[in-house]
Each structure stands twice: as structure tokens, then as C-alpha cells.
């Protein structure tokens, strides 16, 4: 296969910037695409070249396979990196790239189809001796059938989109009334986000951990796992905090489950980077849930503990190279944590928060990495995902990484919008989190929202005198401005110099 010399990035936000950086490291021309709401976004600014896609709606821009292929061809792109979300797990897109002689940096359409259809995938895994999670047996199109299955399994149940992923399209439903209400919403949502709607039902299990294994497999069939990520801290079934290693995975289990994960990738004839997701129960049993056939949001923590650059590896594998390391060459060193900073108001049921960001300060220093599209004066669009930054810290052990996260969170200031930073600040100092006593229902189980509100009240108290001083200063300022104005009517010279 020829060496890739230019890559079109069919995505936006922090992941587009991440791929642009990998391109720059490899001397590859980076080509970005943008919607009208993104013309000043960072992926426009940092790419070597940039092309307009269309109106803000994803369906008119980042989901337009035809336009993206057209731009790839006219700009002479050798390859396309899909990032995550959008078209990253769309087999039609992978196929279309192939037809047009463009390398798709990810799995083949066939693998993606199998991985994307959660039901088919489970069948294959059963055959490959990969332990799978208990749940319903197929896609449910009809609301009446859904109600019947849910009744049989017993509430609560999970309503999941067969084409979802990353927590999207998953709803917890407690009774039939809710099921009927949510079935339609979930169906529409999945339609809007993935262009398809097919739901299935799974029994909701408690005291469960979400642990996943990073995979990469080359075109010669060499498959490796890059150890686990513990992603149990979730809200609304979406990951909030991830870490590697997991506090409950020791060396033996890591090797054992890692091997199962590699077997799963072999069963799908997987190509490039992917992730095998498992549920782990309190007894330490691992159940396969699905393969995410793309680069994962939380890939940086794996990069840090393994020292491997996953995006560069993706590109190497995509141009036909063999993986440059064997399984036994890999070593998990130190500890890394990622907090997902979303533009949502955690005090208000995580309602989306969008708009202009007049200023922001990204944390830096020892053990800190930030992947973000924020910059002072940027805009957070309501048309796309709420992930605005990933804050990653690392240290020799979990506690060093954790304390660095605490400090980095307090250095991270974002004006103009609400973010999930307050809930991260709360969790990072919460005793169950510190002791590794976590599960997917952690947020509810330990009243994290209440604890966050309590923490805010404490912060309010601590900052009250300083804040009031600011008000007093402004009132002095206004008084003097007014006096000065009366004297010389020259408002221009009022700023500063009064005290």
C-alpha cells in the first residue's frame, strides 16, 4: 500500500485537532472540513487546508458522505480519518471511500457492519467463546413487542439503539408508561444521530463496572490489546471519568481478559484501532457488550500508560504497515485519569449550555494533558456534541494522578458557559472514588449531585468576601466615573486609574 501523504479529517472539535497533530508529526498534509457554525473553529485554523461542507446541522454537513468524498477527491486526499461519532461507524462511508480509492482509517465496511449491529456481533462472540452480557435477543421495532419483552425481563430495563455507542441512544426505563414515552424519543434520536433506528432491550444490572480494552490490529492479522480502561463513572449511561489501570484489574486478569478482547477482534477480522467493552460484576466476571469500531474518546489515558501514540499507529496500520511491537513489549506504567468536560449544567440536570466563551484558561504543568477545541473567544455550538475538553492527568500511581487532576480542574476556567467541572471536582475528592469503590450507578448511589451542591455552597462562602470586595470596587468605580463625567463629560478616559 502506498504511504499516506494527505488525510481529510471528517470530524470537528478536539478529535479533529488530535488527528491534525498526528498528521503534523508524520509530515502528512491535513485537510479539514467545516460547517457554517464552525468557520472559526480550531480544526479550521490548525489544518493545512480547510473546506466548507454546508449548513450547521450535522445532516447537512458532517454526515454528508457525498460532499465529504467530493472534497477528498478534489483536494487530493489519500485517506480519511473519521474521528469518533458522526460517520466513524458508518459502513456505507467506509465502503464509499474504498470505491473512490481513498483509504478509510478504520475497519472495513464488513467488520463495521458486524460490530455496529450489536445483536449480530453477540452471535459471533458466542461462537468465538467470548463471554457475553445477559440481555434481549434481537432488535425490537414495535412498541407493543417492546412492552412485552420488558415486562418479561422485569423493570428497570435499558432501551438501547443497535447503532448507538458512547452512551447515546441508551435510556433507563422504570415502568411501561416511561417505556412508551421514551421509545419514541429514543427512536427519533437514534434516527437523527445515526440515520437509522433499531432498538433493543437489555435488563438493567446494578453494581456493575464498565471496563474496556483498547485493541489494535494490522492488515497482516497481528492483534494487540493495550490494556484496560475503567469507565464506570457515568451519568445517563455516558462516561464522565475514565482511568487506566482499573483499580480492580490485576496483572493476571489483565492478561486473561486482554486475550479475550484480542480474540473478539480476530473473530470480526478487525482492522485498525477499536475497543472491546465489557461489564464486570462484583465477582470479577467480565461480559462482552460490544466492539466500538473506531478511536475512542478516552484513548489518551491508554496513550499515556503505554507510551504509544494511537492516532499515529492508526495511520501506520491504515497504510499497510505491521504493528511495530509484540504483546509482550507492552508495559502498563503509571496511572492516568480523564475527566470529560462537557458544556452542560450539572446543577441543572446536565442541561446543554452553549454560546460564546469570552475567555478560558487551560491547565498545564507536570502530569497534565488537555485535548480541547476551546480558546479565548471561541464559540460552543448547540448543533453538536457537548464534549468541549478532555482533561487528562497522570502520575506514578493513581493517587498522584488524582491529586494532579484536582489541581488541574481548579486551574481550568471557562467563562460564559456552564460545564461539568464542578461534578468532577466533587468526584475527585469523594472517598468512594478515592478507594476505587465505583460502579456504573456511582453518581446516584453516593448522592454526588447533593455533594456537589454542598461543595458549591462551601465555595460560595469561601469566596463571599472577595466577591463582595469586587462589588464595592465597582460601585466606587461607578461613583467616580459619574463624578468625572459630570465634570468633563469625557467618558472615554474613565477606564482605570481611579484608585
Amino acid at each position, binding site marked *: 500500500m502506498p504511504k499516506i501523504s494527505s488525510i481529510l479529517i471528517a470530524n470537528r472539535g478536539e478529535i479533529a485537532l488530535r488527528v491534525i497533530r498526528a498528521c503534523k508529526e508524520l509530515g502528512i498534509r491535513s485537510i479539514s472540513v467545516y460547517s457554517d457554525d464552525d468557520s472559526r473553529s480550531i480544526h479550521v485554523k490548525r489544518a493545512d487546508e480547510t473546506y466548507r461542507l454546508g449548513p450547521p446541522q*450535522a445532516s447537512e454537513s458532517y454526515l454528508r458522505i457525498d460532499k465529504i468524498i467530493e472534497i477528498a477527491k478534489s483536494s487530493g486526499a489519500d485517506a480519511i480519518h473519521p474521528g469518533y461519532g458522526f460517520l466513524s461507524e458508518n459502513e456505507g462511508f467506509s465502503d464509499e471511500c474504498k470505491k473512490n480509492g481513498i483509504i478509510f482509517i478504520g475497519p472495513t465496511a464488513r467488520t463495521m457492519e458486524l460490530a455496529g449491529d450489536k445483536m449480530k456481533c453477540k452471535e459471533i462472540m458466542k461462537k468465538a467463546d467470548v463471554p457475553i452480557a445477559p440481555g434481549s435477543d434481537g432488535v425490537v421495532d414495535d412498541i407493543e413487542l417492546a412492552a412485552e419483552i420488558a415486562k418479561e425481563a422485569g423493570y428497570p430495563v435499558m432501551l438501547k439503539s443497535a447503532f448507538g455507542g458512547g452512551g*447515546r441512544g441508551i435510556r433507563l426505563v422504570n415502568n411501561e408508561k416511561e417505556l412508551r*414515552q421514551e421509545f419514541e*424519543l429514543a427512536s*427519533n*434520536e437514534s434516527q*437523527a*444521530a445515526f440515520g437509522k433506528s433499531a432498538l433493543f432491550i437489555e435488563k438493567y444490572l446494578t453494581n456493575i463496572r464498565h471496563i474496556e480494552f483498547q485493541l489494535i490490529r494490522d492488515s497482516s492479522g497481528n492483534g494487540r490489546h493495550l490494556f484496560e480502561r475503567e469507565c464506570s463513572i457515568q451519568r445517563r449511561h455516558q462516561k464522565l471519568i475514565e482511568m487506566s489501570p482499573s483499580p480492580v484489574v490485576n496483572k493476571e486478569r489483565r492478561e486473561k481478559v486482554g486475550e479475550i478482547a484480542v480474540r473478539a477482534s480476530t473473530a470480526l477480522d478487525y482492522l485498525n484501532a477499536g475497543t472491546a467493552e465489557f461489564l464486570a460484576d462484583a465477582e470479577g466476571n467480565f461480559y462482552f457488550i460490544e466492539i466500538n469500531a473506531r478511536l475512542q474518546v478516552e484513548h489518551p489515558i491508554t496513550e499515556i500508560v503505554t507510551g504509544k501514540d494511537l492516532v499515529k499507529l492508526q495511520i501506520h496500520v491504515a497504510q499497510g504497515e505491521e504493528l511495530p511491537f509484540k504483546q509482550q513489549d507492552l508495559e502498563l506504567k503509571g496511572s492516568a485519569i480523564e475527566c470529560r468536560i462537557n*458544556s*452542560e449544567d450539572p446543577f*441543572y440536570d446536565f*442541561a*446543554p449550555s*452553549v454560546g460564546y466563551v469570552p475567555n478560558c*484558561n487551560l491547565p498545564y504543568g507536570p502530569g497534565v494533558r488537555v485535548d480541547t477545541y476551546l480558546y479565548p473567544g471561541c464559540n460552543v455550538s*448547540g*448543533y*453538536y*456534541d*457537548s464534549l468541549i475538553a478532555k482533561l487528562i492527568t497522570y502520575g506514578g500511581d493513581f493517587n498522584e494522578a488524582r491529586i494532579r487532576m484536582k489541581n488541574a480542574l*481548579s*486551574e*481550568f*476556567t471557562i*467563562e460564559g458557559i456552564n460545564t461539568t467541572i464542578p461534578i468532577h471536582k466533587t468526584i475527585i475528592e469523594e472517598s468512594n472514588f478515592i478507594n476505587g469503590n465505583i460502579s456504573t450507578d456511582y453518581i446516584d448511589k453516593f448522592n454526588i449531585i447533593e455533594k456537589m*451542591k454542598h461543595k*458549591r*455552597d462551601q*465555595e*460560595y*462562602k469561601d*469566596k*463571599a*468576601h*472577595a*466577591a*463582595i*470586595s*469586587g*462589588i*464595592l*470596587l*465597582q*460601585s*466606587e*468605580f461607578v461613583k467616580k*466615573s459619574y463624578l468625572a463625567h459630570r465634570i468633563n463629560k469625557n467618558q472615554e478616559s*474613565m*477606564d*482605570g486609574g*481611579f*484608585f
Partner: protein
Amino acid sequence: MKFQIEGNNNKIDAELIYNRGSGDLLFAIDDQKYNLKLLKSTSNEFEFILGNTYHYVKILPSTETKYKIFIDGIVIEIKKHSKITEIIEKTLKSKGIASQANNITSQIPGRVVKVSVSNGDKIKEGDPIVVLESMKMQIAIKSHKDGTIRIIKVKEGSTVSRNEIVAIID
């Protein structure tokens, strides 16, 4: 001046005792005296050392009864407590409660993807009124009480901002 921090019942007294000039001021806040050294100021931004600790304060657009303040990376809200603002506050509050009771407001910004009811429809508490889409999520705005739809204020495809009224019920 008197202030009250959100989520706390205590009122706080604060005043400027004197201005020594060249950025040195003396404040009294809740019977504590503070030396304040002003480092930089514009009309709404202040950098200063209070006692021995640095602070950055930006006064955000505030309401008549509340200050919204960005301080050292967090946003805090402080109620004004002068006699006049107290009266204004009460008036606004009583009016607000009376009229708000029949309003169904959007508590998030978003695009209306579906209007689930029509004018004159009878509805029950918890019934979805409209469905919004924001950041790839679809969220239903539900009624907070039983009643009849007097008027729907939004259309499918239109966008609403936070706290905008989407419907009024009787």
C-alpha cells in the same frame, strides 16, 4: 451595603472605610477589616490582593436583585440587600410567582423538533408539551401541573432560549 450569598441565610455587611490612594483601600466586611491592594481595573474587571490573597473578579451582567460574579474561575451569585432592592425584589417575586404558575418554560436552549399538543388540549402533569433537540439529545418539556393549553408559543423548527415560555396553560 448589605449582601446575601445564595444558599445561605446570613446577611453580610460590607463597606469601604477609606481609600488611601494609589490602589490601597480599607474594607470592612462582616466586622472583619481588610487591606485591599488594587492591581488592575476596568469597568467590570478587578484584580486585587485582599488581605494576602490574590483575586480576579469580573462582574457579569446582573439582575436588579442579584449580582452574578465570576471569581477565581467560578461563578457565584450574591443577592443585593439594600432597602430599595428588597422592596423591588419582593414586588418582582410576587408578580413573578403569580404569572409563572401558568407558564411552561424551556429550561434549556434548543430547537423545537416536535409540538405534542394543540391549543385547547387538556393535559395532565408530566405530559410532554414540546420536544427539543440540543447537542444531539432530544428532551421533552413536560407540564408541571394538570390543565388546558391556552396557547402554544413555539413552532416546530423554531429555536428557543433558556427560560423562554413555550406554552401557557389555564
